[in-house]
């Protein structure tokens, strides 16, 4: 016997202005199953909630409908109120008579009629609701952090410091990411390595962090709280448990001609190498493509010099499985390499800048290495072509950013700041030099940011030209930069010794493949999608997977670090409980009815449905069926829509309920 209460909210004037609330209450009081119908000015307020609780008690209600705003706003509020009176929270329904009615209709009579319809439907639905209880899923309190740049380091340390084990996977031979290669950082000009390397060492020494460098995430299985991650530890050819990092091997290596990845090709390294002196772990790897022992079977000098016997030319890739409960993705960015062949023809249009053709046209990360104390020139700025000190340097913003025709339509956000920084670093190294910047807008929002840019212009004399550069040519060892100053309304030609292109920030290579393994969405540029741009900035739509840093969008160091701590905070909230509770409004498959066509398996956007077999005691196969994994199902209902045998059902939105709602309108 249904005993349903209907509670109609005025929402101040929001609803009552266009819906005749009192008349509505009169009509709804006579609906089948309705015991009481009340209105109140603000149902979500404390007196409003008390009114509801009172009625639940007095009328011994076994279902209720709140006619007010969107369930996104206050469903939780009313369910909690019901729960406090012992009414199962899943017996509470909402009729949205604000967003769906009073805000969009202005004819009082028609709006009132529509509100009545919405309530009638909700009542029809709630009569067929079942009491549900949240699903409990076990939880492994270990986290995986993918990417060991500044964001990954921060997230890993925060989680580890909270007392949970962390598995940190880094693709390169050392952690540190892009930040380890920067010279100084804006807006304070403090040395990048000086502030990062202590954090790197902390990661290397932390008892709660298990570090896998030179490794990739191969496969991810399972679901929130219960992921099983396969990690491919690539062959390093050096046993890091024996190696002492003494350096005898890389000093002995005769092949020192390989362009250094860490220096973005500005310097050279040996075939066995540590990327930079402060690397963590400070253990070398052998580049299998450069080592003649591995390519031709000749040499082996490093092995002869190694006193610890750590070199193993027969090393193989290793697959390791780790169980974790949460995953933080911090795979970072790359600067777009506009010189190389592009993945599609649209992106191949920057021949006019001569990057890759003229040696003295470099990108900003290459410039960082040229002015870094740990860089290939020892911190003395010398241009790549002839080693001369450049007296005129042109910095170009927005190369490939904010370019709908041939590049990325977004703003890369950090270039304005690092261009200003570069002009300052340049002036501090070459006192008689002149820096020019071509820019479209100066975007320097942030604490002490605009002051920093003004300092570059006012104190360090950088010449800013508002306009783009059209073409760069080379004549007699000079780069002729043809640009414009739109404020003066004149073309500008500068004879430069070095040109630095601030190319667009793009997500790191391979992020799409990783996102597919994790079931995380990404945009047309490959940046990972957060769950909500404002209110859920580090969550993703895959439960238990979080994002931070530049893999989610262009951002600078402070923002990446803040986001990493936010993601770590979210992981800790998850780990503060013994198990995970999830909403019970999920799909189920009637296994007696299922025809095992597995259409649902293919349609499910969350990979939450698996193929199962029902066997008798002797192990004989009785039938095949689809089965929903309650840990993964997000309750979207796609399987219900596609199931040809009508054996999929969504709890809380059963077909019976939906038909009853439609029929109630008749």
């Amino acid at each position: 016997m249904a005993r349903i209460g209907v509670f109609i909210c005025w929402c101040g004037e929001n609803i009552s202005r266009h819906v005749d609330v009192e008349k509505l209450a009169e009509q709804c009081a006579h609906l089948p199953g309705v015991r009481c119908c009340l209105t109140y000015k603000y149902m979500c307020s404390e007196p409003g909630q008390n009114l509801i609780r009172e009625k639940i008690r007095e009328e011994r209600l076994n279902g209720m409908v709140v006619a007010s705003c969107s369930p996104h706003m206050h469903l939780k509020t009313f369910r909690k109120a019901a729960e406090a009176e012992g009414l199962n929270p899943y017996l509470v329904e909402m009729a949205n008579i604000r967003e769906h009615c009073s805000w969009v209709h202005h004819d009082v009579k028609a709006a009132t009629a529509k509100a009545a319809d919405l309530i009638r439907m909700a009542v029809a639905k709630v009569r067929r609701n079942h009491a549900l209880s949240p699903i409990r899923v076990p939880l492994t309190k270990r986290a995986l952090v993918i990417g060991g740049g500044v964001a990954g380091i921060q997230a890993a340390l925060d989680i580890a410091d909270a007392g949970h084990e962390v598995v940190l996977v880094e693709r390169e031979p050392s952690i540190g990411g892009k930040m380890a290669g920067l010279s100084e950082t804006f807006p304070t000009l403090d040395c990048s390595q000086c502030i990062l390397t202590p954090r790197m060492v902390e990661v290397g020494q932390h008892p709660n962090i298990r570090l896998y460098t030179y490794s990739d995430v191969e496969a991810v299985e399972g679901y929130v709280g219960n992921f099983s991650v396969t990690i491919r530890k690539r062959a390093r050819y050096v046993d890091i448990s024996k190696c002492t990092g003494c350096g005898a091997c890389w000093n002995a290596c005769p092949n020192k001609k390989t362009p250094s990845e860490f220096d973005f090709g500005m310097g050279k390294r040996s075939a066995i190498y540590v990327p930079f002196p402060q690397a963590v772990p400070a253990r070398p790897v052998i580049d299998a493509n450069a080592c003649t022992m591995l390519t031709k079977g000749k040499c082996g000098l490093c092995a002869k010099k190694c006193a610890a016997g750590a070199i193993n030319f027969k090393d193989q890739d290793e697959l390791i499985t780790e169980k974790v409960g949460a995953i933080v993705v911090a795979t970072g960015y790359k600067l777009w390499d506009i010189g190389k062949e592009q993945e599609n023809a649209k992106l191949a249009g920057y021949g006019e800048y001569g990057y890759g053709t003229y040696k003295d046209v470099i990108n900003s990360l290459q410039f960082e290495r040229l002015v870094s104390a740990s860089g290939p020139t020892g911190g003395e700025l010398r241009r790549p072509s002839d080693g001369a000190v450049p007296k005129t340097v042109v910095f170009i913003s927005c190369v490939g950013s904010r370019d709908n025709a041939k590049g990325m339509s977004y703003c890369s956000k950090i270039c304005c700041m690092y261009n200003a920084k570069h002009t300052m670093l340049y002036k501090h190294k070459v006192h008689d030099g002149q820096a020019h910047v071509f820019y479209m807008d100066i975007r320097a929002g942030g604490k002490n940011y605009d002051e920093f840019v003004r300092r570059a212009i006012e104190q360090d004399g950088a010449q800013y030209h508002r306009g783009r550069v059209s073409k760069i040519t080379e004549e007699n060892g000079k780069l002729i930069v043809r640009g414009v100053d739109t404020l003066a309304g004149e073309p500008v030609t500068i004879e430069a010794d070095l040109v630095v292109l601030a190319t667009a920030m793009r997500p790191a290579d391979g992020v799409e493949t990783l996102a597919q393994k994790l079931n995380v969405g990404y945009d047309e540029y490959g940046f990972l999608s957060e769950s909500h741009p404002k209110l859920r900035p580090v969550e993703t739509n895959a439960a238990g997977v979080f994002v931070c840093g530049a893999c989610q969008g262009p951002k600078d160091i402070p923002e990446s670090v803040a986001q990493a701590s936010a993601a770590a905070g979210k992981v800790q909230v998850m780990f503060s409980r013994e198990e995970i509770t999830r909403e019970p409004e999920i799909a189920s498959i009637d296994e007696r009815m299922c025809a095992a066509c597995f259409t649902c398996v293919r349609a499910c956007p969350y990979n939450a449905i698996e193929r199962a077999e029902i066997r008798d005691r002797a192990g004989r196969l009785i039938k095949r069926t689809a089965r929903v994994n309650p840990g993964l199902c997000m309750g979207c209902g796609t399987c219900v829509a596609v199931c040809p045998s009508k054996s999929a059902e969504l709890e809380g939105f059963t077909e019976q309920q939906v038909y009853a709602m439609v029929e109630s309108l008749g």
Partner: protein
Amino acid sequence: MSNESTNTPKHDAIEQMARELARDCYQCGKCSAGCPVGERMDVVPNRLIRLIQLGHMAKAAAAGAIWECVSCQTCTARCPQNVDCAAIMDALREFSVLRGTASPEQNRTVIFQRAFLDNIRRYGRLNEVELIGRFKTKAFLNDLSIPMLFKDALLGPQMIRRGKFHLRGEKVRDRDVVTRIFEKCNQ
């Protein structure tokens, strides 16, 4: 400004087209930076586009710059916003010719282009001798300038040597096709 009484529906159509073409411009200036004649222009291309965006079509069309443009299309090719800057220049010239605001010297460009098109219409190929004859005659009638008649005569021998100037004109075989192209363009 553009709604002055001299405007005809044709003016309005050109202006509307120009504004449509100019809509996406965000004033980065790459057009002006790469323009081979930018240094000779009184108003650089990005500023012409800005004038159009602001509705000052007549002011833009009065600029001498539109007659400096050599239609090399570098601006269009490099524009990050896919704005067809060369087409905007065409529109401005057409607008200016319709209003009759072009100076006799600027009109020479128009006379040249008409002579050029007339040539193509009749032969399908360029007949350089006839082109020069027609252009010089018409231009002389336009501004009665004698120096103009001979100012580039010395270029002739050089051009002949480099094979850029043919004394005997050629014709295409199927001239009906050419006629049809012109008919289609006139529609």
